[in-house]
């Protein structure tokens, strides 16, 4: 790409070139000269590099550059220029067994720069905490985690947890680390100790716990934490829901296995109800436990009351569930409400258009659809829905009410020949006493 011609020749014709491997010990530097030239190399600036004069410096465009105007200075700490290739040779101070007497602050700096370091020599609690605080102020997540790993290994749990209470950033990092490494036991202990002594961070961590019983227990212990009132209510609901689901799951799984409960045989459960959202759980109960009295855990009405589900939400869910089961009389019952005179009217918190939509998605027969299309207020909408779902009677009646002969005549072609609907249209059209627009 950016080699000059001369370099290329050197590269191919030189016998000194050998494959570069990471294994090579000292003195690889001179052997690598050719390959570096060929790559239009950029020198790695090493701290005790005496060989810099031997390597031809080249600029970005491939032209050799005199040392005065070189792009790259000889400042060993110029890390911004450590750009294009991994280190080819490390200075002594970067080998792992080279240990010097660095303070906590210097150690953190070395860690940030990727240089060798040793945490082992910091034995006192004070030193360890200094390490942690310097790491946090360096804003380097990697370094913070490294220090925490060391502290986790060399500090007693109680001490560590106590110190972390006042160090929110470090605490977050530790929680993330324990979550990623799936150290459930220690994570639980940490969270419990935090809950005992004060606020955790917004109770998010409970989701790191995978076993549902342990999670439920943990949620319970979180309930006394100072959440905002709304969040508190959500955590409470979460706990109650999980508790409920554990009970329902156990009972239903047994019933299904027993083979005697009809609905489980007809509609086998596709998944466990554990950890499902509230609305999904409600749907499940409307599906499998609709007729149960309000006192049971799995009664849909009980769910509605316990979690204060809105009428609209309950309605939509129950409708979908009963429609799926093709229980049309149940669907009908949802809408029926008696007013004080004893008359029944169809009431719905949903638009009837939505209702028709849901019913149609569950393959409701035309007679059923018809009843609800008829309840759509807006005439135009009603007609288009009726036409879409082939509810002929509604179309006919609507056109009749609109006194529109043209439209009625036009619709005749859309109904089946010889059908009752055709006869009805003919009757209307031929009736001499009818007045039309």
């Amino acid at each position, binding site marked *: 790409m950016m080699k000059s011609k001369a370099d290329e020749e050197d590269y191919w014709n030189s016998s000194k070139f050998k494959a570069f491997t*990471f294994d090579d010990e000292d003195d690889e530097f001179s052997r690598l000269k050719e390959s570096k030239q060929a790559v239009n190399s950029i020198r790695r600036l090493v701290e005790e590099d005496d060989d810099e004069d031997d390597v031809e410096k080249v600029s970005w465009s491939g032209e050799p550059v005199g040392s005065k105007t070189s*792009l790259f200075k000889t400042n060993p*700490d110029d890390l911004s220029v450590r750009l294009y290739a*991994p280190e080819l040779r490390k200075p002594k101070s970067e080998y792992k067994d080279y240990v010097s007497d660095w303070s906590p602050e210097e150690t953190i700096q070395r860690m940030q720069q990727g240089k060798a370091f040793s945490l082992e020599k910091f034995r006192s609690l004070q030193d360890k905490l200094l390490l942690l605080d310097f790491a946090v102020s360096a804003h380097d997540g990697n370094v913070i985690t490294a220090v925490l790993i060391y502290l986790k290994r060399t500090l007693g749990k109680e001490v560590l947890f106590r110190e972390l209470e006042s160090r929110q950033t470090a605490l977050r990092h530790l929680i993330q680390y324990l979550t990623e490494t799936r150290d459930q036991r220690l994570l639980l202990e940490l969270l419990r100790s935090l809950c005992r002594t004060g606020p955790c961070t917004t109770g*998010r961590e409970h989701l790191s716990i995978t076993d549902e019983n342990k999670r439920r227990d943990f949620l319970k212990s979180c309930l006394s934490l100072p959440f905002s009132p709304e*969040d508190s209510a959500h955590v409470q609901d979460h706990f109650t829901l999980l508790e409920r689901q554990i009970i329902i799951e156990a009972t239903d799984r047994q019933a299904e296995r027993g083979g005697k409960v009809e609905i489980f045989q007809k509609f086998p459960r596709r998944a466990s109800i554990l950890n499902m959202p*509230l609305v999904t759980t409600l749907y499940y109960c409307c599906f499998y436990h609709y007729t149960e009295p309000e006192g049971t855990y799995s009664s849909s009405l009980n769910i509605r009351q316990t979690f204060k589900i809105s009428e609209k939400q309950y309605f939509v869910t129950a409708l979908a569930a009963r429609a799926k089961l093709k229980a049309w009389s149940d669907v009908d019952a949802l809408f029926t409400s008696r007013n004080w005179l004893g008359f029944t009217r169809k009431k719905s918190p949903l638009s009837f258009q939505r209702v028709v939509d849901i019913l149609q998605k569950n393959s409701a027969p035309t007679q059923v659809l018809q009843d609800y299309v008829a309840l759509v207020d807006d005439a135009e909408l009603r007609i288009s829905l009726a036409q879409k779902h082939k509810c002929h009677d509604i179309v006919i009646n609507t056109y009749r009410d609109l006194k529109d002969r043209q439209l009625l005549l036009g619709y005749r072609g859309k109904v089946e020949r010889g059908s009752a609907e055709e006869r009805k249209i003919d009757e209307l059209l031929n009736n001499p006493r009818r007045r039309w627009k």
Partner: protein
Amino acid sequence: MFITVFKEHEVEKMFTLKSGRLPSADVKNIIFFVRPRLELMDIIAENVFSEDKLHSSRDFHILFVPRRSMLCEQRLKEQGVLGSFINIDEYILDLIPYDGDLLSMEYESAFRECYLENDQTSLYHTAKGLMTLQALYGTIPQIYGKGECARHVANMMLRMKREFAGSQNQILPVFDTLLLLDRNVDLLTPLATQLTYEGLIDEIYGINNGYVKLPPEKFAQKKQGEASKDLPTEAKKLQLNSAEELYAEIRDKNFNAVGAALSKKAKIISAAFEERHNAKTVGEIKQFVSQLPHMQAARSSLANHTSIAELIKDITTSEAFFDNLTVEQEFMTGVDTDKVNTYIEDSIAQKDPLIKILRLVCMQSVCNNGLKQKVFDYYKREILQTYGYEHMLTLNNLEKAGLLKPQTSSRNNYPTIRKTLKLWMEDANEQNPNDISYVYSGYAPLSIRLTQVLARPGWRSIEEVLKMLPGPHFEERQQLPSGLHKKRQQGENRTTLVFFLGGVSYAEIAALRFLSQMEDSGMEYIIATTKLINGTTWIKSLMDRPESQTP
């Protein structure tokens, strides 16, 4: 580029990291070149274990890009393979060029780290990347910025420069100005559905590393007379960049203008192929044949983009898309942002994808400077009840990031900002745009407006508005060695590098390109960012445990 380098160093083969056994190759050394992600460590462990049985004493090495990670090394230790590595190092790759005018760090978690976790590691890398850039392209004399993170990056840059005191960068500066912008100065733009061709491809299919994977049915080669029974099952992978002439032409257009552009191109290509009838002499025929490869490439390019445009059109003409866009535009123009929105309500009830819901409620919150407490509580409850209580984490994250929050006592400044900066242009011309608002068919991205105003007439004219936006705004100057000050020729453009801290969308990039090629702008823009994003990937990065969320 790397492949040439590798070959010169006698790299035998390159493979993509996959779980299971390592593919066979006659080599002694195996180098893993990976990003520091925990899942990859498990795959590497698998690879290493599978080796022991077959080959003796192969040497393993790891290069983390761009940095090592304690967590990853710890994972390797737990897997029992850490000791198998002879070398563990890092390969610092900060800014990756995606196109002639676009650089990205592809640092996915930058926004989350900065605004949720108070972790400024990404800003440190940004500063480092900018120092590298200056080493190659010259010190940038003027630095402007808006936002807390911008301030941090600028401070770090100035400090790093001071640490190299005594040396002067003699390169003639390519950039006149650097503009650092925090993503949270403009939270609205990434939430809106992009309407440029490239933006829509990204929204619907996702562009990764300059590639897009598309459903293969449309791209099946139908030979003459053959039944298309053997349809390919693997997704069609296409590379998207400005090297493809047609793509460069249409990528930044509003999608509604793409059809016309494709027809026009089709006519040109047809005409070119028709030329063969006019080629009579041997010389003319020879010339025609020599141009054939170029024409065939152009035709194939046209076929691909026609197919893609058809796929996109199916979506943009759907009722769902239209309804969604309508609500977005209502919010952007300030209509009914203080009430529960019925479309959102219905969408939750129908259990539409969670991300769609989140984008809409966040947009409403941003356009209202926070939702009324009742509205906020209502949305929150509906979401938790319908999608699960575990999403409380995500909702808290969104609140912390400022995307979905209850109203505080401060007033809503958004209408003022909108009017002053002319963010809503009623009659945006999609076919022949005269303003950046064409990228969202009416909405001018706030971030780009700020960039535009900075160039002319300058930020002093919008002092008041700038104060309403989060974070400080500032200007810094860096000394250039004498003799390097550019003498500007008549009509020569200035170059500004705009760096988005926290992500940038393709629509915003299109808007900047539009500004660059405007007649009287006098300014050219190069774009850099921590990550290329769209509303979906952005919100996803703020979700906790994304693998368990509904997509």
